[in-house]
């Protein structure tokens, strides 16, 4: 642990500047990416998508059908989503995102609880860890696209609502980072701290509650940030075999059929799905800010 003598800061910056700077930096990065996108299109169109003097072609075609202009993508958000429909695309995406988010949130909560319990169990019983860990790791290597229909069919047999299956699929993607990081965090205290607990004749439960759990908290939050985004992915992928019409999965699938004629809608939907994931992760980061002081966060 570094020890710091308390010193007066050399320069005084107003307290609202660092967060504002972060937000500005984010938007500047977005602008730069848009500029790169449009720049690539300009260069591609000028050179006919081939490197000059060679027959080597550009990795991505730059015409408007393959890479719509940024303003076209943004523009299509404010047009009716379906011919003759009342909702503009933005509203449709928002409704679908909200629907998917509920499934993702359920999966996130369940996955975090299961992941934490599993991590705590494996931490306590070394024999369990040795025997179960290979299977836990293997579970993540099975492609989700294969497992999702299985879960949907079992759910159908058990007669539960379709969105439960989706939440379960989301759980499947969520629990693993939480398990691994809980295990790591519970084991993070140094041996001297454990020896001290032994000298107090502390019970195992006291050691868990007073030492291991608080020490594991920063690691658990790292896992939760990852799980926030993967739970959204799980929910979207899970919706496809479930036949659910109201979520982002169906929206993305539908617009992928119309990609040849109107790619802008698909791009806009992808950005919408990404935004959902980002907002969920930002929520977790906000909770982390409230729970952990800056000195204890693993990522700043």
């Amino acid at each position, binding site marked *: *642990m*570094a*020890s*710091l*003598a*308390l010193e007066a800061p050399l320069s005084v910056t107003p307290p609202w500047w660092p967060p504002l700077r972060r937000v500005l930096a984010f938007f500047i990065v977005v602008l730069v990416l848009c500029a790169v996108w449009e720049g690539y299109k300009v260069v591609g169109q000028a050179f006919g998508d081939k490197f000059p003097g060679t027959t080597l072609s550009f990795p991505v075609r730059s015409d408007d059908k393959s890479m719509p202009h940024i303003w076209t993508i943004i523009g299509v958000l404010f047009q009716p989503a379906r011919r003759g429909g009342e909702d503009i695309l933005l509203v449709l995406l928002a409704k679908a995102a909200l629907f998917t988010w509920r499934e993702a949130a359920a999966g996130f909560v369940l996955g975090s609880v299961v992941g934490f319990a599993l991590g705590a169990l494996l931490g306590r019983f070394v024999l369990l860890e040795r025997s179960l860990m290979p299977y836990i790791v293997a579970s993540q290597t099975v492609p989700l696209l294969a497992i999702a229909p299985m879960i949907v069919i079992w759910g159908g047999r058990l007669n539960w609502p379709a969105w439960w299956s989706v939440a379960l699929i989301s759980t499947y993607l969520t629990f693993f980072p939480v398990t691994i990081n809980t295990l790591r965090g519970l084991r993070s205290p*140094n041996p*001297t*701290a454990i*020896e*001290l*607990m*032994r*000298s*107090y*004749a*502390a019970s195992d439960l*006291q050691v868990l509650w*007073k*030492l291991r759990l*608080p*020490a594991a*908290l920063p690691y658990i939050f790292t896992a939760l940030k990852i799980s926030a985004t993967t739970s959204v992915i799980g929910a979207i992928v899970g919706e496809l075999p479930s036949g659910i019409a109201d979520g982002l999965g169906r929206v993305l699938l539908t617009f992928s059929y119309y990609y040849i004629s109107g790619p802008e809608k698909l791009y806009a939907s992808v950005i919408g799905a990404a935004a959902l994931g980002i907002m969920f992760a930002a929520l977790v980061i906000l909770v982390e800010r409230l729970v952990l*002081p800056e*000195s*204890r966060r693993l990522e700043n």
Partner: protein
Amino acid sequence: MDDTDFKQSVSSVVKVFWSITLTSVISIQNISKVYSQGNVTALSDINLEIASGEFVSLLGPSGCGKSTLLRLIGDLIAPSAGMVLVNGRSAPEARQSRDYGMVFQQATLYDWRTVSKNVQLPLEIMNYPAAQRETRTREMLRLVQLEDFGQHYPWQLSGGMQQRVAIARALAFAPKILLMDEPFGALDEMTRERMQLELLRIWGQTQTTVVFVTHSIPEAVFLSTRVVVMSPRPGRITDIVDTSSLPTPRDFETREAPLFFQKITEVRECLRRDEVRGASS
């Protein structure tokens, strides 16, 4: 028999009776510790009696087993042979009765707790009522002269201050015995000397029995009533140097007294003898 023989035998009988009645807080009997199925002998046949209120240093080069012996006394590891008795009870019983306070080289304070809360940790585990925890913590912080730092976090404190908090925490539940494993090893020389004075003052006020592991000869001589010199391969006690003749209270003047240097030389000779014996065998 003649006069001098009679006086000698009377004095030896008196000595024997005196040592039996002397309150021996820690009794280390025939302790051995081996690792790797007998290939590594960390400690071999250690015998040591420590009286109540003594300050005993375990001194020796790396590998002599001094830290192992300390951990055996505190029941952090189990002996391969022999036993440790603390006030007549076994070491595990003593640990369960919370007879030991321990301070290690790293302060190991919890950085999610304030200084106060860190000192309170053993009291919480031992189920002291809240009001008593508060008063005890304040007393301990006053003892180590950190009463204004209760609401600070460990990372805001210097290394020496963190060790003082660790000492406050170790003494919070008034253990009979304080076990210290090179607690000042990570500090610079000046802080170290200041901390030694602090420790002696605290020892004087609480009258705990202290077992102190160090590899610094001046530190051992300055702090202790007895210096136990150990030697490696196999780990054993080779000499015990009595340093109680140094005047108390010990302060910076003691460090310049001729007797201080004499005792340091005496201890150094013991270590050199062990080194030579070890090299020739």
